[in-house]
């Protein structure tokens, strides 16, 4: 039984998503993103561009909506969004309930410093790694 499961899962190398977010986004060709409102205009532009780059990396079109962080995070937890992009410190009250990506653009920042990050459902490890890849690839053009 265990061997059968392992064989079935062996089609793609680990990690996989328990809730299959990556597969859903790629199969449906649609990325449901939440963009946190009330940030500086430069940051808002950066967030939208990042969400677009993530969608493109998964051959999906971006279906984005803007709103307050609390409402978007609740939608993320309920599975109505695939990710939320916002300006968050790593040590955030949300960090117990969602998983955060590295800062965008990549930088060494203190855990309390709010920077643009992507929040995903915890445990969606393949999905998070895909986002980290996009952040690493796009950070070069975003420095400063």
């Amino acid at each position, binding site marked *: 039984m265990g061997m059968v499961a392992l064989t079935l899962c062996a089609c793609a190398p680990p990690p996989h998503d328990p809730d299959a977010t990556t597969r859903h986004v790629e199969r449906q060709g649609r990325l449901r993103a939440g963009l946190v409102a009330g940030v500086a205009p430069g940051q808002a532009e950066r967030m939208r561009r990042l969400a677009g780059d993530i969608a493109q990396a998964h051959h999906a079109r971006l279906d984005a909506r803007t709103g307050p962080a609390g409402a978007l995070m609740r939608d993320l937890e309920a599975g109505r969004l695939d990710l939320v992009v916002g300006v968050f410190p790593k040590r955030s009250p949300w960090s117990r309930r969602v998983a955060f990506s590295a800062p965008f653009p990549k930088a060494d920042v203190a855990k309390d410093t709010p920077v643009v990050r992507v929040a995903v459902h915890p*445990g969606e490890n393949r999905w998070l790694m895909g986002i980290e890849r996009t952040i690493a690839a796009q950070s070069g053009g975003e420095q400063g």
Partner: protein
Amino acid sequence: MKHVPQAIEADLKHARALELWTLFWQLSIVAVMFFAMGSSQAMKSAWVEDVLGMVPATVFLVALHFEQKAPTEKFPFGFARVNSLAFLIASAALIFMGLYLIYDGGMKLVRMEHPTIGAAPLLGPDVWMGWVMLAALAYSTVPPIILGRLKQPVAKRLQDKVLHTDALMQKADWMTGVAGGVGILGVGFGWWWADSAAAVLIAVDIVNDGRRALTIATAELIDGAPRELGRNAVADEARSLRQGLQSKFGADRVRLRESGRFILAEVDGGKPPAQSDPEALWSGDQERRWRLADVTATVARR
């Protein structure tokens, strides 16, 4: 009471070297596991077990230091029991830590928390941190298996309960590595529960280690009869020694108790034989006659 009998000096030296090596390797494992731990519950449990794995080696070295000290006015019976006291404290710590980890992992299962294991921070976004964790777990199993095997025969010759329990705990460490590895691989295949389930399994092993150590330390501290090494059964050589003393003294009652690696005998009634040196009264394997450290006789009135 003797301090260190000549017959076991070489073995004690060997055991001390093995325990120093254990601390060295265990420290390296603790450091590697700490940096690879991430947010995995199984890695957290395995790391705690690795930290606690240093306790028996430390207890052994501290106890050895005290065992070699001469009795003092305040401690006229010497310090052979220091290891039992230290072991009792250490075993209680093992049990409490294991129970905490069972609770912690169990609550994560109940709350259905999905562990996030992303990319390895130092190796770039293409390397999954789970692979780093698996490598660290594999490393953590090798030194304990080798050291555990090397310690077992020495522990038997020295009749050292701390060393023996340490050897058994180290031999069982491969289970921790495998359980942790299965947990991480499970997370990799999308089974969110695998991490916490592995953590609970490892924690049960920690509690079991603690329970075993507690039983052994308690038996000695309440003056129980000498036990077989690593078991709760009364040792065969203790039975034969009791019968031997009974017949040599013509005694009404012989009571044996353990003090560290040594056996102390109290003989009530009868008459001491001509040869009353403890080693001459030993009735088992002559290589182990150093174990009988003291015989106290209460001679019957005629």
